C-alpha cells in the first residue's frame, strides 16, 4: 500500500512519465463535445437516480377502465399510458436504473479482462502474447450481439446473467488497444532504466505502465459502456430481459408486442427510446472526446 502513496508523491518517477495525465480531465472539459457529454450525463443521472424517488412507479397500478388504456400525454399522465393503463413517465424513470446497472457491471468485467489481458500480453510479449492475442482475435471476430443473444437464451435472463454475458463478450477490443500501448511503453528508456535498477515486473506494471494507460482505459471504458447499454436494450427488446425488472428495453418490447405502433402510441415508444439514446450519447460523447484529447492527431487543433 505504501507503494501507491509513493507513486503519487511529487518527484516520484511516474510523474516524469505521465506529466500529461492531470491535464486529460481539464482538456475534456475544455472540449465542447466532452463538456456537452458531461452535462448530458449529469442530466441523465439525475433523472435516473433521483427521478424514481420523486415519482415512484407502482408496477401494480393498472388502469381500471378502457378509457385509461394507451392514452396520449395529459396532465394526469405526462407521457401517456401503456396498454395496461400504467403511467409511461413513471415507468420511464424507473427503467433507467437497469441500463445503468447492467452497463456499469458489464463494463467493469470487460475492463478488468481487457485491460488485464492487454497489460500481460503487451508487457511480457513472447509466447504469452501470441497465445493471448490468438484468443483475443477469436473473440474479436465472433459476432457480439448474436453471441450475447445465444448466451442469454441458454443461461437465463436475470440482470446478473445479462451483465456477465455482456461483460464476457465486450473485452477483446480493449485488450487490443491496451496491448499496443503497453508494447510501446515497455520500450521507453524510463521503464528500461527502472528494470535495470531491479524493479519487479508487478511493480513496473503497477507504477509505470498502468498509470500511463489509465486515460486510454477511460476513453475506451466510455465507449464499451455505450455498447453495453445498447446490448442490454437490444436483449430486453428481443424478449430476453429480466422479466421481473422494468427497463427501457423491456418497455419497448411491451410496446412493440402490444401493437402500440399501429395504434399510433408514439409516447409509449419515444419516451423509453429517448432515455436509451440520451444515456448512450452521453457516454459516447465523453469517450469520443477523451479519444480526441489523447490522440491529438485525430482532430485536436495542431
Amino acid at each position, binding site marked *: 500500500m505504501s507503494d501507491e502513496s509513493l507513486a503519487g508523491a511529487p518527484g516520484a518517477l511516474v510523474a516524469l512519465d505521465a506529466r500529461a495525465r492531470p491535464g486529460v480531465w481539464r482538456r475534456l472539459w475544455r472540449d*465542447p*463535445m466532452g463538456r456537452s457529454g458531461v452535462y448530458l450525463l449529469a442530466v441523465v443521472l439525475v433523472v435516473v437516480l433521483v427521478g424514481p424517488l420523486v415519482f415512484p412507479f407502482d408496477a401494480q397500478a393498472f388502469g381500471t377502465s378502457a378509457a385509461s388504456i394507451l392514452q396520449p400525454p395529459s396532465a394526469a399522465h405526462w407521457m401517456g399510458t401503456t396498454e395496461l393503463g400504467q403511467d409511461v413517465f413513471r415507468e420511464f424513470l424507473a427503467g433507467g436504473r437497469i441500463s445503468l446497472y447492467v452497463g456499469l457491471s458489464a463494463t467493469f468485467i470487460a475492463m478488468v479482462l481487457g485491460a488485464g489481458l492487454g497489460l500481460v500480453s503487451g508487457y511480457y510479449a513472447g509466447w504469452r502474447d501470441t497465445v493471448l492475442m490468438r484468443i483475443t*482475435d*477469436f473473440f*474479436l*471476430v*465472433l*459476432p*457480439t*450481439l*448474436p*453471441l450475447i*443473444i*445465444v*448466451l442469454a*437464451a*441458454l*443461461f437465463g435472463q436475470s440482470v446478473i446473467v445479462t451483465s456477465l454475458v455482456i461483460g464476457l463478450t465486450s473485452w477483446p477490443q480493449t485488450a487490443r488497444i491496451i496491448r499496443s500501448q503497453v508494447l510501446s511503453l515497455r520500450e521507453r528508456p524510463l521503464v528500461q532504466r527502472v528494470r535495470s535498477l531491479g524493479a519487479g515486473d508487478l511493480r513496473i506494471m503497477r507504477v509505470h505502465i498502468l498509470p500511463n494507460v489509465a486515460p486510454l482505459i477511460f476513453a475506451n471504458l466510455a465507449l464499451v459502456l*455505450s455498447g453495453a447499454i*445498447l446490448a442490454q*436494450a*437490444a436483449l430486453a*427488446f*428481443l*424478449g*430476453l430481459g429480466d422479466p421481473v425488472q422494468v427497463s427501457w*428495453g423491456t418497455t*419497448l418490447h411491451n410496446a*412493440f408486442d402490444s401493437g402500440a*405502433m*399501429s395504434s*399510433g402510441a*408514439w409516447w409509449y*415508444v*419515444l419516451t423509453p*427510446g429517448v432515455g*436509451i*439514446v440520451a444515456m*448512450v*450519447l452521453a457516454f*459516447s*460523447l465523453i469517450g*469520443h472526446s477523451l479519444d480526441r484529447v489523447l490522440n491529438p*492527431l*485525430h*482532430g485536436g*487543433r*495542431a
Partner: protein
Amino acid sequence: MTARYLGRKVATLALTLYVTVSFNFLLFHVLPGNPVQMLARSGHFSPAARAELIRLFGLNHPVLVQYLIYLKNMLHGNLGFSYVYREPVTTVMGGAIGNTLVLVGTATVVTIIVGVVVGVIAASRAHSLTDASITVGSLALWSMPDFFTGMILIFLFGVWTHALPVSGIVTSGVTEGLWAHTLDVGRHLILPALTLVLVNAAEFSLITRNTLVDVLVEDYVVTARAKGLSRRRVVWGHALRNAMLPVMTATGLYVGMILGGAIQVETVFSWPGMGLLIYNSVEQRDYPVLEGCFFLFAIAVIATNFISDLLYHLLDARVRRT
C-alpha cells in the same frame, strides 16, 4: 502476396473455423444446462423422438465421443433438426439466408458509400462548424438502438403517412410478373435497409474523417496542392485512396455489428431472414435452429475478416514489403 503469407492465413482460417465449431459444441452440448441434454431428458418428446435425439448426438456416449460425432455431423453439413418446423436446420435456414443477404448486402453498400462521402466532407472542412455537426450527428445516430430507429421510421413512413410498407418482404396478392415482384420487394426493403444505414454509417464517417485529417497534412498531399491541383482532386484522388485502408479493416468488424443489427431490424420489420429466424427460435426455444444461425453468422464474419485481411495485404504497400 507471397505463397507463404497466403498459406499462413489459410492455416489460421482453418484453425479459427475449427475453434468456432468446438466453441459451438461447448456452448450447446457440454456446458451445464445445455439444451440438447435437457431436451432429451424432458418429457416433451415421444420415446421414439427421444431415441432419435440420443442417437443423432450420441448422448449415451462419453463427451469426447459426442464431440467426434458432432464434428462428423458438421463436416456432412448436418446441423440437426428443428423442434418447431420439424425439418432439418439447413432447410429452415435455406429459405432465410437469401433474404438476409439482400437486406445486409444493400445496407452495407449504401452504408459504406454514405459513410465515406460524409467523412470526406467533414475532413475537407476539418474543425469547421460543418465538421463538428457531422461528428456530433454521427455520434447521435450511432447511439440509437437499431430497433428503436426502425420503430421511429415505422411511425414516420408507415403509421402517419402510409408512404412505405413497414412489414414483411412482399405485399400479398400483387406479385404478378418478375418486374412487379422486384419493385414490390424493393419498396419493402427501403425502411429496414435505411435503418441499418442510419445507425451504422457513423462508424465509417468517423473513421474516414479521422484518417483523412491525418493524411491531409502529409507531404505528398501538400506537394500535390503545390503543383496546382485543386483541393477537390487532391482529397478525392490522392488522399482518399490512402484513407481507404482503415475503412477496409473497419468493414471486417462492421459485419459482426450489422448482423446484430439485422436481428433487431428484421424483428421490427418482420423481414423473413436469419435475424427474424433467430428471434423466433429464441422465443420458441428452438435451440438447433439458434445454434445453426449463430454458427452461420460466425462463419460469415470470419470469412469477411479473412477477405478484408487479404485485400489489405494486397493494397497496402507498407504491409507488403515486410
